[in-house]
């Protein structure tokens, strides 16, 4: 095999391996306080609630949104995989609402454990976890 080809094959292998490693993560799921009946929401509705443009859940209850810090790996995965936006874009849309008086900022939590506890203890609470970290204290929403 020519040397150039070897390098190319190695790069492709490395990329494939890297890609697999990225997919080895468990999937991120949308969680809610058990007061909301588990069900499903469209992606645009989930976007609107996490972008803080919609203030109520589909059952009419006031939504209380919980997020991890912008640079937290789980936050990055949630925004990209579930919302289809980047953390800095979401931050910009919060700042635009907060400083025009047309919306509020979400509640920031410091850790995954705090995320679970706050969503579990706040009626109307909404957040996200890795699938394996979900327990009976919260319910899971499917995103269409």
């Amino acid at each position: 095999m020519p040397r150039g080809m070897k390098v190319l094959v190695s790069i492709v292998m490395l990329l494939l391996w890297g890609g697999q490693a990225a997919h080895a993560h468990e999937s991120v799921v949308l969680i809610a306080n058990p007061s909301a009946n588990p069900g499903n929401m469209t992606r645009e509705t989930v976007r609107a609630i996490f972008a803080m443009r919609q203030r109520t859940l589909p059952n009419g209850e006031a939504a209380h949104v919980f997020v991890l810090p912008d640079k937290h790996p789980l936050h990055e995965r949630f925004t990209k995989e579930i919302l289809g936006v980047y953390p800095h874009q979401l931050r910009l849309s919060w700042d635009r609402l907060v400083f025009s008086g047309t919306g509020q900022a979400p509640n920031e939590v410091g850790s995954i454990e705090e995320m679970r506890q706050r969503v579990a203890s706040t009626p109307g609470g909404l957040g996200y976890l890795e699938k394996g970290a979900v327990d009976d204290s919260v319910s899971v929403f499917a995103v269409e």
Partner: protein
Amino acid sequence: MIASAFSQWSNQPRRYLYIAALSVVTMSGSVTPAHADVFDTVQAHGFLSQALIISRHNDFFGPSSRDAGSLEYTEIGANVSMRPTNNLLVSAQVLSRRAGDDNSSYEPRLDYGLLDYQLFANDSRVSGIQVGRIKHPFGIYNQTRDIAFTRPSILLPQSIYFDRTRSFGLASDGVLFYNEERLRNGIVYFAIEGGKPNLNGDAESALSLPSNDLSVSMNGRFSTLAQIRYEHDGGRMVFAFSAADVNANFNSGVDEVGDGKFKFQPIALSAQYNSADWSLTAEYALRKRKISGLDIADLNQSVIGDSWYLQYDRRLFADWRWLVRYDVMANDWHDRSGKQYENDNRGPAHSRFARDLTLGLKWQPRPSLLLSAEYHNIDGTGWIPPSDNKSEDLERHWDMLMFQASFLF
């Protein structure tokens, strides 16, 4: 310094406005049935920005071409908001801003103060109504134009977001209806607003031209504004059309000139593409300005000007972004070079246009801290605020370097 800035309560009517706004916030909490979590929804946020401007040939926002430059560009604001019921949001913000003008006491103003009630919210739409002092949804950046974190650069493109006559487009006391319609992978947002615009001294001094001896006073009359916006795929592509009809009484303060009416009708087309690492933004605006009803026929005039800019900004490392922008405005699209204006002995040609090439760099190590620097190379003086220079001293070609530190909570 901040404390002293906010303790300036020199203006009685404004003082009552603040007290009224605060009472609304407090009362709406106490009127609602006692939910334990209502006060959990109270939020307070604020921001502070300080710039250093160093320019050559012309002054911008203070004596920027002299000595070590100008520090007279400061923005300080604080807001409070709460959700007394599921569908209701109450919010108010106070802004203290100095931009080379005579606001050396940093006298604060009520920037907005509103009730936002969401009438419907379901899987396909959200619609609501806002009442109070409302920031105008015009173009991409107008609603939060004084918050450095929501601007792409220290200065917004001046061809569309004039600081020279900012109060024509800033906020109104009135009512706004909005509706967000959800599509399969995008939203259509529509807003329509009616009210009385808050005009300030900037509008008056900008319109005092051409003869500076007029002591103009203006007050807002019923005005309207509408915006329709489409956001595709979570905001990857944004398209917007905005239009406004801003009206004011124009009192010349001189008997022979009399009183008249002022009308400002801008429309703007906006487009933006956002990828993970870069954004491309373009906006075009057409601005019609009309003064009528004055006793001297020459002063009654109608002028159409236009503006556009193209802006590319890109992530450099994790927390760094750089930006390049070309921004063009003409005060009168029948006289883009201003030559006719100069031939008519009304002022220098370069006061009728501006072309600004901007390079910018931003570093945001945390969501709450932003450090920016930018360079402007400008041909024309069309958007320089009249308070910064004597018009006979203005030079056509000028440039400036700006630095800004901003903090937000």
